[in-house]
Every structure is written in structure tokens, then in C-alpha cells.
């Protein structure tokens, strides 16, 4: 009972079979604690958006249970919906309306009076740098502004759970950073946040816990820290000064020749870069530079997906 009260989101055996026969979700179980900053990762078509669609009542589930702060969406429909704010992947507001009207109308759908809604709209539009644009037609806003408008709209009824479906897709780096700061602030203020993202750096920087979904199943559900700890091997790209006439060999380090001046080396967590460079120097190979080949989390993410597919 106490567990349910502390849980912002509970999914039990959640399944979705589309009418075209596509099984998008196959009995997902997931628990997101209140106050968490949670990432839902997965490749395209894995089931992330279907999961979010079901939580927000935009998609009908085939079976299973969805609870928001203990309120079953099948039973306590109204209470559950009041607690969720959703920022979808694609723009879904009336592009001919003004930002201020979009926010006040959305508040009205939640039973909030116009007077209160105007106050809240001012607060969130100011926080998100849109107050000056409040009376302009929404279609004239830039892509980043439109995305911030959707965040303001999702927050207008003060939800306890904010769900963002790829919030920074197509957003420039500066704006992405400012959105991260904003999301961290509202999370620190007590709002539970769930986001899906393709920018794995985003999950690594923002989130405490993560679930990886693939082919409609949760294949990993853990903390981001513990996920990163699972990383055993990192791949480095090494540029060498002289032309390579052979593939160098250093004991314990798998090396692949990319071209005459570049090799790739896999380094395990118990190995050192020093030993690798010494080994190369012993073969008269001078290292000019070295770079990390891939995002560590992305590498791990792909390995988990591959592992789940091979199972």
C-alpha cells in the first residue's frame, strides 16, 4: 500500500496489439518512483511512444494496468489524468491560436478558472521565455519556441508527473541546455519526470533511473549509474604518425586497422591506456592523437539491445 503511494507510475502487464496485428507492447511492468527523473530509452518502433500514448489515454491498451500515483486509469480516470502533463514529440496545438489562449484553454479543460489560468500562463510563459510572444500567432514561433510552448501547456495544471516524448529532438545545443536546466529545476521542486530520448547524453546527464525497451519488452530497468558501470569495453580511435604496413599487435588489446594511419582499439575496464601506448611504441608506432569512438552509454545501449535480440 505504501509502495503504491510512493509510486508515480505503475505499469502492470501492459500490452498493446494494434489492429494491423503489430504487437507493440508485450506485458510491460514498470515502476517509477515519485520525484524520479526517469528515462525511457529504445530504438525506433521499440514501444516507447505507445507506452506514453497509453499512459496519457491517447492509445487504448489491449490489457494490463496503468496507475498514476495509485489512481488506476480505468477506475479513477479523472484523478489520474489531472496528475499527468504530456509534451508530445510532434507539435499538436492549434497553430492559429495565440500562446496565451492555448494555455488558458488547456487549463479550462482541467477545470481551472480563467483568472487562475491567466496567472499560471504568465508564470510559465515568463519562465520559458515566451511571455513577449504571448499574443502572436503560434505558427510564427520558431521550432524551439513551439517546443517550449508545449512544455508550458503541459505544466499549466501543475501536474505531479511530467512526461516528455523526445523533448529536445531537433533543438539546437544552446536551447537544449536551457531546457535541461529548466527540467532539472522543476524536478527538484518535486515534479516526477519521465522522458524518452534518442540523445543518450540527455539520459546520462539528467536521469537517475532508466528503462530500456525493445520489441515491446523492458530489457533493462536500473539506475543510470549502474548501467554505466556495466560498461566493460570502450573503443578508441588512434591516429598514428607513420604509414602502417601491418596491423599492430599489443597483447590483450584487440586492434583493427581502419586505414594506413588509423587503428581502432578495444580497451577493457581493467586495462590502461598507458600499456597500450607503450605496446605501440615498442613496435615503433608513434601515436599522434586518440579519441573516444562512441558515446559510452550508446555503446552499452546497443549491446543490451543486441543481447536481448539474441535471446
Amino acid at each position, binding site marked *: 500500500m505504501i509502495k503504491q503511494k510512493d509510486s508515480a507510475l505503475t505499469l502492470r502487464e501492459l500490452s498493446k496489439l494494434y489492429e494491423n496485428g503489430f504487437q507493440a507492447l508485450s506485458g510491460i511492468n514498470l515502476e517509477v518512483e515519485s520525484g524520479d527523473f526517469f528515462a525511457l530509452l529504445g530504438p525506433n518502433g521499440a514501444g516507447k511512444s505507445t507506452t506514453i500514448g497509453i499512459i496519457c489515454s*491517447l*492509445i487504448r491498451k489491449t490489457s494490463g494496468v496503468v496507475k498514476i500515483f495509485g489512481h488506476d486509469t480505468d477506475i479513477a480516470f479523472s484523478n489520474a*489524468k489531472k496528475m499527468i502533463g504530456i509534451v508530445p514529440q510532434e507539435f*499538436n496545438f492549434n497553430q492559429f491560436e495565440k500562446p496565451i489562449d492555448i494555455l488558458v484553454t488547456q487549463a*479550462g*479543460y482541467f*477545470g481551472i478558472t480563467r483568472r487562475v489560468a491567466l496567472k499560471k500562463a504568465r508564470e510559465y510563459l515568463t519562465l520559458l521565455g515566451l511571455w513577449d510572444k504571448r499574443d502572436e500567432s503560434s505558427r510564427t514561433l520558431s521550432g524551439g519556441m513551439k517546443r517550449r510552448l508545449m512544455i508550458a501547456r503541459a505544466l499549466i495544471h501543475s501536474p505531479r508527473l511530467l512526461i516528455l516524448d523526445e523533448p529536445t529532438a531537433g533543438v539546437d545545443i544552446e536551447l537544449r541546455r536551457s531546457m535541461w536546466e529548466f527540467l532539472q529545476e522543476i524536478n527538484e521542486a518535486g515534479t516526477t519526470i519521465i522522458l524518452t530520448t534518442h540523445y543518450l547524453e540527455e539520459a546520462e546527464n539528467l536521469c537517475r533511473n532508466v528503462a530500456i525497451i525493445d520489441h515491446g519488452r523492458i530489457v533493462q530497468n536500473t539506475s543510470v549509474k549502474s548501467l554505466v558501470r556495466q560498461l566493460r569495453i570502450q573503443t578508441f580511435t588512434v591516429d598514428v604518425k607513420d604509414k602502417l604496413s601491418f596491423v599492430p599487435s599489443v597483447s590483450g588489446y584487440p586492434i583493427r586497422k581502419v586505414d594506413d594511419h588509423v587503428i581502432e582499439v578495444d580497451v577493457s575496464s581493467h586495462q590502461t591506456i598507458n600499456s597500450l601506448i607503450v605496446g605501440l611504441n615498442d613496435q615503433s608506432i608513434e601515436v599522434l592523437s586518440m579519441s573516444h569512438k562512441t558515446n559510452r552509454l550508446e555503446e552499452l545501449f546497443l549491446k543490451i539491445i543486441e543481447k536481448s535480440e539474441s535471446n
Partner: protein
Amino acid sequence: MNRYELWIAFMTIVIREVRRFLRIWPQTIIPPVVTMALFFLIFGNVIGSRIGSMQGLPYSQFVAPGLIMLSVITNSYGNVVSSFYGSKFQRNIEELMVSPTPNFIILTGYIVGGMARGLLVGLIVSLVSLLFTDLSIFSPIIALAIILLTSMMFSVAGFLNAIYADSFDDISVIPNFVLTPLIYLGGVFYSTSLLNEFWANVSLINPILYMVNTFRFGFSGVTDIDIFWAFTMVCLFTLVLFLISLKLLSDSPRLRS
């Protein structure tokens, strides 16, 4: 949601709908008024003066209630079908679907929005008709009741069309190929007593005939059909369409996959 919150959600939808059609008044208010003014001018005055009387009324007086009804029907229907389909197309219908607003409030809000436009256009057309003919009222209660019910029924019908529509073509098929013929063959311009027995009987399956005749009865006290039956039928149609719309709003894969 408590009752007060439901009321706020309902009024939010109604106000949004009214603001929408008022914002685009050159598309929503002016064209039907201009069209009806031309109908009055041509059928009421130019041709009507040669036709003489119909059911004992000057032709311009006979045709006026039908033209008012025509504008109410097309505008009530058109408002809901274009607004709801537009929301589906732009996906801002999701704003409502993720909210705790219950389906019956969503449906009622759209219906009242459609009625607001239909009745506003009907009122303006009524005022325009006074430039061309004298309109006396026989029973204001019957006239008002049937115009409200008809407007409600076609607002719900527009909602149903919008749920099924997958393209902008789909929202023009019913108005162009079903609604318009039914209206024009629904006794707006002629009395069914002019038709031979076969076509007069065929006309009786056209629901719009009952609405137009009842509305005309409210003005002139003259009708081709049974008024009580007309009210019963409009109420039944409205109720059935309302329940179907409510069910689709909840279950239709066209709204929630």
C-alpha cells in the same frame, strides 16, 4: 472533476468554438448570409412574384422559413464537422483527450458551439429576409423549439461525420451529396402537395421535410405534415446520433488507436 470544474471545461469548449467561427467571420458568417439574400432576391422576389401563392401564402413568405432553416442546418453541421476534423488534422484534439474532461462534456461543448453558429446565421438570415418579405409568427414556441432541435441534431451529425473523416474530402462528401439534396428536396421551395402521390410519399422519408414544415408552421400555421410526429422524430434522431457519437468518442480507433 466536480460540477464546477465540468462547467468550466464545458464553457471553455463553447467559448473556444464561438471565438473560432467569429475569428473567421468572412468564411463562416458572411457567405451564408449573402447566399440566402440572393435566394430571397431571386426566388422570393424575382421568380416568386410570378409564382404567386403557395399553400395560401405569398411565395416569398412560403420560402423564407425554409431558407432560414437551410442556413441553420448547413451552418450547425459545417461548424462542428470542420472544427472537430480540423482539431483531428492538427492533432490539437489531443489537448482534450489527455485532459480529465469527460466525453459527454466534449460532445456537448462541440454541439453547443455548432448551434451557436447555426442560430447566429439563422438570426441574421431572418433579419435579411425582412428586407424582402413580411414574416409574421404564428407560434414562436414551435418555431424556436424546432430550430433549436434541428440545429442540435445537425451539430451532432456533423460531429459524427468528423469522427469518421480521414481527409478534407470526407467532410465535404456528406454536405454536398447527402445534406444539400435532402434540404433542396425537403420542401424548402415547394409544397409536397404539388408532387404526384408517389413522389409525395417518397418525400416523407426525408427528415428535413418535417423540420422545414414544422418551422414554417411556427411562422404561418400552415403545414404538410404532422407536427407532433416531426418533433418526435427530430428528438429520436438527435438522441440516437448523440449516443453513437458518445460511443465513438470513447472507442473509435479513428480517435484512439
